[in-house]
């Protein structure tokens, strides 16, 4: 029997289930946020406490404000540039037939099968040769071309009736205007999904910044965070409340970004275009 959502009892059961599931997913996050407000002494002694000292420490001692800025710059630029490149590639693959087009698309799809660790060393050598290690450019450039985003957007654009392109051409648009005024607005849900995907992947990227960056003031949050585990090698305890404060600084922008983007992820926008 289906649960009766209209009766107050059905409602109550449903709400309890949803709440339980929500808590299950949120509890580690909530726990780490809670922990970030404890002093280390109180935490290990099992007292309750409230302090902002971990955040002060992370920002003042360990330069996390700078790491946050670096992460925002790198992930932001990667997202914008990556979406621009992927959208144009997707449009070309979806709408134009050109010699070698299928082969080129197969090559794009093939990049999806290659683990990023395999490209790590070639990328490193290339960027070293170009003198781009230890720079924002070195962090950003290798991440811009996303085969997955190009593939995903191409599939989406293929679902948009070609008649809309044709109508725009008849209205006097050129290819770029068709892309910008018709395809992009209609693809907004897919573009925002891919933007979110690119942003989060880059935000969580750890290995590449670790190998590409030596200068401390170019560290991203993930690299800075990992470093907290190996400070004070003489001491045998890790300052968990400090790590949790730094983690919270790392998580919050992503959550905020998701909240901002989420309402653009609605679907069904081509409704009513063609018979």
């Amino acid at each position, binding site marked *: 029997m289906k649960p009766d959502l209209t009766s107050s009892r059905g409602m109550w059961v449903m709400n309890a289930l949803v709440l339980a599931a929500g808590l299950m997913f949120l509890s580690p996050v909530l726990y780490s946020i809670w922990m970030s407000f404890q002093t280390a002494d109180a935490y290990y002694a099992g007292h309750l406490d409230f302090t902002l000292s971990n955040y002060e420490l992370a920002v003042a001692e360990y330069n996390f404000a700078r790491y946050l800025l670096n992460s925002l710059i790198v992930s932001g630029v990667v997202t914008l540039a990556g979406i621009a490149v992927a959208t144009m590639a997707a449009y070309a693959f979806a709408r134009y037939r050109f010699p070698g087009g299928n082969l080129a698309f197969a090559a794009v799809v093939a990049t999806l099968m290659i683990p990023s660790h395999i490209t790590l060393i070639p990328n490193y050598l290339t960027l070293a040769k170009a003198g781009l290690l230890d720079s924002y450019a070195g962090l950003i450039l290798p991440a811009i071309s996303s085969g997955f985003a190009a593939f995903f957007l191409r599939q989406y654009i293929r679902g948009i*009736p070609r*008649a*809309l392109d*044709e*109508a*725009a*051409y*008849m*209205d*006097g*648009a*050129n290819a770029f*205007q068709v892309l910008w*005024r*018709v395809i992009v*607005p*209609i693809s*907004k849900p897919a573009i925002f999904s891919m933007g979110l995907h690119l942003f989060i992947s880059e935000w969580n990227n750890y290995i590449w910044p670790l190998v590409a960056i030596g200068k401390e003031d170019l560290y991203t949050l993930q690299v800075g965070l990992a470093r907290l585990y190996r400070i004070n090698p003489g001491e045998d305890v890790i300052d968990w409340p400090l790590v949790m404060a730094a983690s919270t600084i790392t998580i919050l922008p992503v959550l905020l970004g998701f909240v901002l983007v989420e309402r653009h992820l609605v679907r069904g*926008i*081509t*409704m*009513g*275009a*063609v*018979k």
Partner: protein
Amino acid sequence: MSSIELTQIRKSYANGPEVLHGVDLSIAAGEFVVIVGPSGCGKSTLLRLIAGLESASSGDIMIGGTRANDLAPQDRDIAMIFQNYALYPHMTVEQNIAFGLELRRVPKRERLARAREVAEMLQLTPYLDRKPGALSGGQRQRVAMGRAMARNSSTFLMDEPLSNLDNALRVAMRTEIKELHRQLGATIVFVTHDQTEALSLADRIAVMKDGHLQQFDTPGAIYDRPANRFVAGFLGAPTMNFVPAEALEGWTGPREVELGLRPEALRLHRARPQAPAIEARLALTEMTGSEFVLHCESPLGRLTAVAPRAEGLPSPGEAIWLEYDAGAAHLFDRDSGARA
């Protein structure tokens, strides 16, 4: 306004059979041409070729006296109404209508004023702020029409632009299109399945079948002198009756032909008349308004006649006589179907 000249146009789609087999069509500047033909005969394909959305496999397309085969659609100054509307789903009705003007950098105030004017004409004013998804089929179709009409193009291609409208709206829009044509003097190529539309709008009608142009002439000429049996049977409602000449009692003309008799060339008698007539049995009557359509069974096959409503009609099953007007008969070659 531009003339459109098609010479020996052939078109095959990628990996498909040929769908246009050498079409010649010469449309004068400012002319209103209606294309009719059965579904799948290549009408939309022909429009798309003129628009530049498809390229011809061979043949020449001249627009305004210059070869346009390799001209991009946006450079042809042609407005098109698509059979499937192709409205921009992310834009409001107003934006849909004004988009072409916006691309041509018409100032905002001017283009919005124009969009409103067009919307008024198409009775779309209440829906200006809606998106296509929230419109009925007929409303969408009118937006598609408005989008084409907002610009003063030299040429309009309209692919069944009135097919989804109710009768009153269709008649009103027909008048608007005629008026638009008169005001702008634009060249219009109009596809329709509706005979009344074709006969009432066209300067000339092009009848197509299976990728071939059958006849291209004025409505009067097509109706009075159809070039072949297909055209004769395709235009005119109810459709023309065809009977073998030698089987027709009292026929004095050539015998080795097929005769075409329009329903109005048959006169109903309830008793055998003096003049030669076909003996038949009334099978079914159909009211169309001012007239009745009579479906009759005869030794020559099924025949259709019309009778005014006033006449006392026989009832189904009754024997009747259909007197034919020999002067109004069309003669067609029995094998080729060509007008004899």
